[in-house]
């Protein structure tokens, strides 16, 4: 009896909860009203079944509860009843599946006039690229990824030179224009999800996945990563801003092309050795621990390191000249800087590579306060600060 | 016994009682157990084969066989190993026959020959590994090589597991007392060996297949 009442209450409470709940879909901001409608159909059918089954159980519990002298009926099966139930269920299933598949057909048929945007995921940030004048996106590959080329465009592919690179994790889209989003990842799976647009899709390293939608409301929407991608998964933030056509055109016009980005990078005032050192620092994982912008890392920052006085763990202090640096790279734990753990691994490097790394560290500038003229190298324009902004993983 | 007829039974109706010797007519449990084990292993190796075919369609795949300089440029060593495994299978089948006839001398000889050829097979596989390594084809050199090492190792491990069962059976075969269940044990050993021979032939065919064959296979399986 109590159970029957409880079941009725649970059912009623569930239905009430559904209608009173402040938690529901975010207001739709894309063309996918069809999805919302299919969900509604599914909800009505399944909700009906849910209520019916629960109330039937409750009724049976009351009606057929044990009382002295009561005996159950003996009825092994009832083909007719079972047949009708099967048919009814199948009809209900079809009523959900048919619209579902119809909508799905729309979802995978990309309109001809869709503009193309590429979203690239990397632990734990978003980047975007748009095709340039030629309307084509240039080739990409993991091997091309570098500090100056975080999207991994092939510098030798002419198609890529006019591609527009979006600085930062915010994408702008025009209102009422279908958008085809191409998705790539460099490291692990991610998922591009904006709740208001309803659609989502994984980013898979090694392939290009896609989905499309048409933004139908202006505003600033959050991008969420919806596929576990490591400890920063919950915090992989970005935005899509939907604006009218002219604002979009303006934004687009201000984007740098890949060619321009490359030229700027080539013009960074680094000599051959330092530039090679910079790539080495990335490839060999130095930058996982050392920052280039003076920020604290697992290891000491490289900014302003060259020529500085280094307090050692054993109380001594040395000057970080070329010899010291080369030694510290070759045999990391021979001398320990005070305040840092002895965890730097020994990396296999040739003499030339060590020299290149030292040259790079040197290019990052001497300590500003005590530039005691000991540095014969023309400091040039240290590219450090903006480098770290998008290069250094943390 | 027809499965569909069984499933259509109306069990609530009174049915004629089964004959008292029902149990005796059933297959020995050990044989059923081994058959299910083989079913599970079939699933295992089939899934490996599917993974192999899917992986083989990706651009960085380099076929193992078919051309000088390829890891399996010469299939001769593997054919020799195959011969050893086939010998093991045949001798164990013979052992099974002898066990049924009660010829314990011949049984022991055949059992021993079966195990020795299986060991020869394993040694031969190890030799092929050594050669590949000597030629610089390591496990991570190419996915095809990865599959080669993985599949041969797994097949070898199952054969080694079979040898454990063999020891179990052989211990009884060398005991003087008559043993009613010995013949079953030997028969199941032989069955397992046949199965591993079949798996090996299948794996061998996959590994040694020309790229065109793999494409064709993948097409048939709807993987392209």
């Amino acid at each position: 009896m109590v159970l029957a009442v409880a079941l009725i209450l649970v059912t009623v409470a569930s239905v009430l909860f559904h209608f009173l709940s402040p938690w529901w879909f975010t207001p739709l901001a894309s063309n996918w009203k069809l999805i919302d409608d299919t969900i509604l159909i599914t909800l009505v059918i399944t909700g009906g079944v849910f209520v019916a089954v629960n109330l039937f159980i409750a009724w049976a519990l009351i009606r057929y509860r044990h009382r002295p002298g009561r005996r159950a009926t003996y009825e092994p099966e009832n083909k007719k009843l079972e047949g009708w139930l099967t048919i009814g269920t199948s009809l209900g299933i079809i009523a959900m599946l048919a619209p579902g598949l119809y909508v799905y057909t729309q979802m995978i048929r990309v309109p001809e006039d869709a503009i193309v945007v590429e979203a690239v995921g990397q632990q734990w940030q978003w980047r975007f690229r748009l095709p340039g004048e030629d309307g084509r996106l240039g080739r990409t590959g993991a091997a091309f990824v570098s500090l100056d080329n975080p999207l991994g465009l092939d510098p030798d592919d002419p198609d890529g030179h006019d591609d527009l690179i979006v600085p930062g994790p915010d994408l702008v889209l025009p209102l009422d224009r279908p958008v085809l989003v191409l998705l790539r990842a460099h490291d692990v799976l991610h998922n591009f999800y904006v709740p208001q647009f309803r659609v989502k899709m994984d980013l898979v390293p090694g392939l290009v996945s896609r989905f499309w939608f048409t933004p139908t409301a202006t505003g600033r929407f959050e991008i969420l990563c919806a596929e576990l991608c490591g400890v920063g998964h919950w915090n992989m933030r970005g935005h899509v801003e939907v604006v009218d056509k002219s604002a979009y055109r303006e934004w687009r016009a201000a984007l740098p092309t890949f060619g321009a980005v490359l030229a700027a990078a080539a013009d960074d005032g680094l000599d051959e050795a330092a530039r090679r050192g910079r790539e080495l620092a990335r490839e060999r994982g130095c930058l996982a621990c050392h920052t280039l912008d003076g920020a604290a890392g697992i290891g000491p920052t490289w900014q302003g390191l060259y020529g500085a006085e280094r307090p050692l763990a054993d109380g001594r202090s040395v000057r970080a000249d070329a010899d010291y640096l080369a030694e510290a790279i070759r045999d990391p734990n021979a001398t320990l800087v005070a305040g840092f753990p002895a965890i730097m691994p020994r990396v296999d490097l040739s003499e030339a590579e060590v020299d290149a790394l030292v040259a790079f560290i040197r290019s990052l500038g001497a300590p500003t306060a005590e530039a005691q003229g000991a540095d014969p190298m023309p400091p040039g324009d240290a590219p450090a600060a903006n480098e770290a902004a998008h290069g250094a993983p943390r | 016994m027809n499965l569909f007829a069984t499933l259509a039974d109306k069990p609530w109706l009174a049915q004629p009682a089964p004959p008292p010797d029902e149990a005796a007519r059933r297959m020995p449990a050990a044989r059923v157990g081994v058959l299910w084990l083989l079913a599970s292993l079939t699933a295992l190796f089939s899934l490996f084969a599917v993974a192999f075919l899917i992986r083989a369609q990706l651009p960085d795949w380099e076929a193992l066989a078919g051309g000088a300089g390829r890891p399996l440029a010469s299939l001769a060593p593997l054919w020799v190993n195959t011969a050893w495994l086939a010998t093991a299978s045949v001798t164990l089948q013979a052992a099974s026959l002898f066990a049924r006839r009660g010829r314990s001398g011949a049984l022991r000889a055949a059992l021993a020959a079966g195990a020795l050829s299986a060991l020869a097979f394993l040694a031969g596989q190890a030799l092929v590994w050594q050669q590949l390594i000597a030629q610089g084809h390591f496990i991570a050199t190419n996915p095809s090589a990865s599959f080669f090492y993985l599949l041969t190792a797994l097949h070898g491990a199952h054969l080694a597991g079979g040898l454990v069962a063999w020891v179990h059976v052989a211990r009884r075969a060398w005991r003087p007392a008559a043993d009613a269940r010995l013949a079953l044990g030997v028969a199941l050993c032989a069955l397992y060996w046949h199965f591993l021979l079949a798996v090996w032939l299948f794996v061998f065919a996959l590994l040694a297949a020309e790229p065109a064959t793999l494409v064709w296979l993948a097409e048939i399986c709807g993987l392209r």
Partner: protein
Amino acid sequence: MTHDADTHHEPSSFWTRYVWSQDHKVIAIQYTLTAIAIGLVGLVLSNLMRLQLGFPGRFDFIDAAAYYQYVTMHGMIMVIYLLTALLLGGFGNYLIPLMVGARDMVFPYLNMLSFWVYLLAVLVLVASFFVPGGPTGAGWTLYPPQAILPGTPGTDWGIVLMLASLVIFIVAATMGGLNYVTTVLQARTRGMTLMRMPLTVWGIFTASVLALLAFPALFVAGMMMLLDKLAGTSFFMPAIVSMGRELGHEGGSPLLFQHLFWFFGHPEVYIVALPAFGIVSDLISTHARKNIFGYRMMVWAIVAIGGLSFVVWAHHMYVSGMNPYFGYFFATTTLIIAVPTAIKVYNWVLTLWRGNIHLTVPMLFAIGFICSFVLGGITGLFLGNVSVDIPLSDTYFVVAHFHMVMGVAPILAIFGGIYHWYPKVTGRMLDERLGRLHFWVTFLGTYAIYFPMHYLGFLGMPRRYYSFEDYAFIPDSAQDLNAFITVCALVVAAFQFLFLFNLVWSAFRGKPAESNPWGATTLEWQTPETPPRHGNWGEALPVVHRWAYDYSVPGAKRDFIPQTEPHEGAPPGTDEALAEARP
């Protein structure tokens, strides 16, 4: 059957009797206790996660890395090491031989090995909590590349131990599965035709077949990932730039892993669900004193669900980037599988109809099961239907769905089963008042946890998020709801200890049980002793004369007729009469 004689003698020493035992009943208890122990770890982990979600930042020892480790270990423990082990190794071991009238499993030694290998798998899993870097935080799906790359906790040792533990578990499950399947096929006693078997046996039997055919997929995926991790191969690893470093991998396919994983993963859902279906069918029939409605349909549905479960796997991959045309096929198969599943629900409900319902504790849990399962089942229709799934996948809607359908529902069935069979296992009844309290808190508590959670999913809150701070689309009220859910989860968890107390206390102080306290028809209630001794049946095996559901047969004296009772008026000279005449 083949060796009646030699399994008969009772082992004498403590060690052979309780530790290295080959008795299916002892092994069942070993499996059950181990599964409950590791399940408690999973429960505590879930509460730690809930603390973070309900009161973010309040518990500073739970950082993001720890949270992801909890999620992963909780999920894996619950699905594999608790539910699979408890339903097959625990219930399967105890019930199959007793219900089909065998003296033991057909391979008792293998059965013993199966338990010890399972224990080893659990120990390896637990060891990963203590290695440098801790357990893996890759999510229970262990998707590469992330599972073996930096940026995820436990990528050095944790993931290796996890994969090793899974491989070991698969060996154990295979040894067990071979036993269960073969025992059902070959060791049924005289008269126990397949269609006279109780549905519990059908459920566990089909689940074991699924286990034998599906676990290999996990094995394949696990082995290949181990090599990717340890030997630098590229089965699943494409060219990757991780944390700024280019790795040596090339050309592998992360999607291949997902296909393999879910080819195992979906049948795994039914490995857990089918035994629960079986158990619930028998509980409802027994306690409603009515034959299970549509027995044949129930058997067919079990078999159909088992078969179909191998062709629906990619419904977990609608947003994975796989070929979009697969969506049509898998949405259709998935919704088709809903038909036999719905039939099962109808037949449970129709068993209650015109029954004589005794609301015993096992019955309470069985009805709780139906209610939870229906909720989890209908939300499955959302997630199976590809275009409806896309907005909901990887949100809390999914979390709520799978907890209802394969978390709460099977757990309720297990509880019901334990309350039902405990008297047979120990010879004593579980305390009824504690049982009712346990039921009410668990049933209503889990409902309060998961029903509202669906709505967080509608809202769009993604799963596997350590924190939802500063997301503008999430209203503050969602945080209040999360706090409420956490409180419910803590209460539910606390009351599970009441159940444990009941288990232990009743074993010593419980009301002594009769041999057939519920008036059930099936064989396990007809043993000469309670608890049954080694060999189960004394001198002679039982002979079966009727199906498992002769409740309230018109004209019969009592409201149940045990399976061992011959039909009246069997003509003399037939086998029935002979069996009677035998001493």
